């Protein structure tokens, strides 16, 4: 193929393979009061001579000595709002329109840069960063059980991702699995897709997603023989049971982290016993350090700039890729295996969010030359709450049955077909929820097979955006946008030391009650 033709193909392929990016802004313009009759199709605001304001969100017709269209008139003190259908032009002091304008040049360049950058940074973007995100409960009104927090990674549209969470929920007698999805934080959630995965397996086996969100079946899990943290503490007993009592960082390790040493680890040992591979099964969640990092360092420290950091900076590929690379290095949990005199990284577990316990299974190789399997879990100090670590032979990756949502029920108890259509497939439709909202999604899983157990996993896709708090805007800050760096992590750790003891109580208290 000639070079010129190749260029055509490459450019067209880039434009078609990656979403085109169009930059928009709002153009505010005065509208002449004495011009010809016209219809303005965009929102229009009329400022009246008596100080009141009339808003025409769907536009207005100007002519015949009046503004004609559905609007709302607000008095000077904004204490009263009344509907209006027309306003005499003679009472209007000023009129302005709000139009959406597109910057075509920037859009084209950004799209092609986005395509190139995505090739380079796709792996870095498939990462996790904190927040609160949609929470999922099961069990009905009597005893709601927190099952999962979904796509806690995804704090901007560009970071939209798919999440897979093991559920403890069971189907009812009719074979239905009902899950309540809540928005319990000051966030807007954009839920693209929800579906249930069913994995059938021998009784007693565990099913958990691996770091790539593929369900893995593991049997005969048992604790490691020995677990020691970096400070030399024997933490074997703490990590042996899934009891909710999680390991926290040694104070000395945490102090050292503030002054520069950002590594902590747990070393695990078990006899190799001729195995070729093993599955490490973790039950864990992030500590609220991840929340401090996000809220107090990334957003609050930026003050008013946090608005544009979330609103536009994170929609730029370069910013997102830079953030993604830093997240890869400093967040998450790395799994390494001792081989030939050193620990060698074999997997990375992305952040899980600070609310719900998450089960993860990681297959690790057992070096034939080593009599003991030595596994190291390494992470930024106190970033994780690890409840249990166990080991078992992997049965293999499962081939789950996918079960689409069959109905979405709003809080009024009625089926909502539009909401169902929004979450039924991964497409351009999103179910949007605001703080305090909830809905129930039901999956028809049918009857369980007689001789096998089954485990359900929730596959979810979407993203969420934080609401900027007034105190962040008022904060005395540098106003600089967040720059991913180890200094930022140290700042978060210092803040974390100050608030750690009380923050979990505060975090619970600040969850938004659902209606």
């Amino acid at each position, binding site marked *: 193929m000639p070079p*010129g*033709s190749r*260029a*055509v193909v490459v*450019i*067209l392929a*880039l*434009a*078609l393979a*990656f*979403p*085109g*990016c*169009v*930059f*928009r*802004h*709002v153009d*505010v*313009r*005065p509208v002449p009061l004495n011009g010809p009759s016209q219809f303005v199709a*965009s*929102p229009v*605001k009329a*400022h009246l*001579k*008596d*100080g009141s*304001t009339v*808003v025409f*969100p769907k536009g207005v017709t100007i002519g015949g000595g009046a503004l004609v269209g559905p609007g*709302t008139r*607000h008095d*000077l*003190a*904004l*204490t009263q709002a009344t509907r209006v259908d027309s306003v005499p032009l003679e009472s209007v*002091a*000023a009129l*302005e329109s*709000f*139009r*959406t304008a597109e910057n*075509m040049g920037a*859009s*084209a360049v*950004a*799209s*092609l840069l986005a395509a190139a950058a995505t090739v380079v940074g796709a792996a870095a973007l498939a990462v996790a960063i904190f927040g609160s995100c949609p929470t999922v409960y099961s069990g009905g009104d009597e005893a709601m059980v927190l099952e999962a927090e979904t796509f806690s990674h995804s704090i901007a549209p560009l970071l939209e991702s798919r999440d897979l969470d093991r559920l403890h929920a069971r189907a009812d007698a009719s074979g239905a699995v009902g899950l309540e999805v809540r928005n319990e934080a000051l966030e807007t959630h954009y839920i693209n897709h929800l579906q249930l995965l069913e994995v059938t397996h021998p009784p007693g086996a565990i099913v958990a997603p691996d770091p790539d969100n593929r369900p893995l079946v593991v049997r005969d899990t048992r604790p490691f023989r020995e677990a020691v943290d970096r400070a030399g503490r024997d933490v074997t007993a703490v990590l042996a049971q899934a009891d909710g009592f999680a390991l926290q960082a040694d104070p000395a390790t945490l102090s050292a982290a503030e002054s520069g040493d950002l590594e902590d680890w747990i070393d695990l040992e078990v006899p190799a016993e001729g195995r070729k591979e093993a599955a490490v099964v973790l039950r864990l969640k992030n500590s609220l350090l991840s929340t401090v990092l996000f809220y107090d360092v990334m957003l609050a420290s930026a003050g*008013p*700039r946090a*608005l544009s950091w979330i609103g*536009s900076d994170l*929609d*730029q590929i370069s910013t997102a890729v830079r953030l993604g690379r830093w997240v890869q290095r400093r967040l998450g949990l790395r799994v390494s295996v001792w081989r030939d005199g050193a620990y060698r990284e074999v997997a990375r577990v992305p952040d899980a969010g600070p609310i719900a316990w998450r089960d993860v299974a990681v297959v690790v190789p057992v070096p034939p030359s080593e009599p003991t399997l030595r596994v190291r879990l390494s992470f930024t100090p106190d970033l994780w709450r690890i409840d249990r670590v166990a080991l078992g032979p992997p049965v293999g990756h499962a081939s789950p049955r996918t079960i689409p949502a069959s109905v979405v029920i709003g809080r009024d108890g009625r089926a909502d077909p539009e909401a169902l259509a929004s979450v039924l497939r991964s497409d351009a439709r999103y179910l949007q929820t605001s703080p305090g909202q909830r809905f129930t999604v039901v999956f028809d899983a049918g009857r369980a097979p007689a001789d096998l157990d089954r485990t359900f996993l929730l596959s979810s896709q979407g993203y969420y955006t934080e609401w900027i708090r*007034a105190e962040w*805007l*008022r904060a*005395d800050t540098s*106003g600089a946008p967040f720059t991913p760096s180890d200094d930022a992590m140290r700042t978060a750790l210092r803040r974390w030391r100050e608030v750690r003891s009380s923050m979990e109580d505060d975090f619970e208290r600040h969850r938004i009650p659902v209606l």
Partner: protein
Amino acid sequence: MNAIRRAIVPALAALLLAGCYFGQTAAQFEPALGPRGVSTTITTAVGKDVTGELLEVGDEGLLVDTVPGVALAAYAIIRDGTFAQTGIRIQGGHVPGASTREKLRLLSRFPQGLSPALLKTLLEAHGQTEVTRVGR
């Protein structure tokens, strides 16, 4: 080069059809949806920050509806002023240029200006007799 040039037109068409959008639309822009002016956050050189709705853009400064009441932040004391959803910024205690002031005027609650009578009514609604001057 000609080949690249020929590719740009269909590529642009593809971009539009694919539909990935960044930035604000009028349907998402708070000042377009309600009576209030744009939300404003001002860091001042006198140690007091001002957050609230932009009421009026004057020759001397910005009139802002804050939680304590109607306040005037003179340009001379504005270290950093930002305006939600706009990207407009004023800094360094300078009087903003004519273009910026015109943009802000259109984003304020009273682009037509506040007459003394209207200002008096507004202040009365806030339980004030006069505008609070930030930094005094």
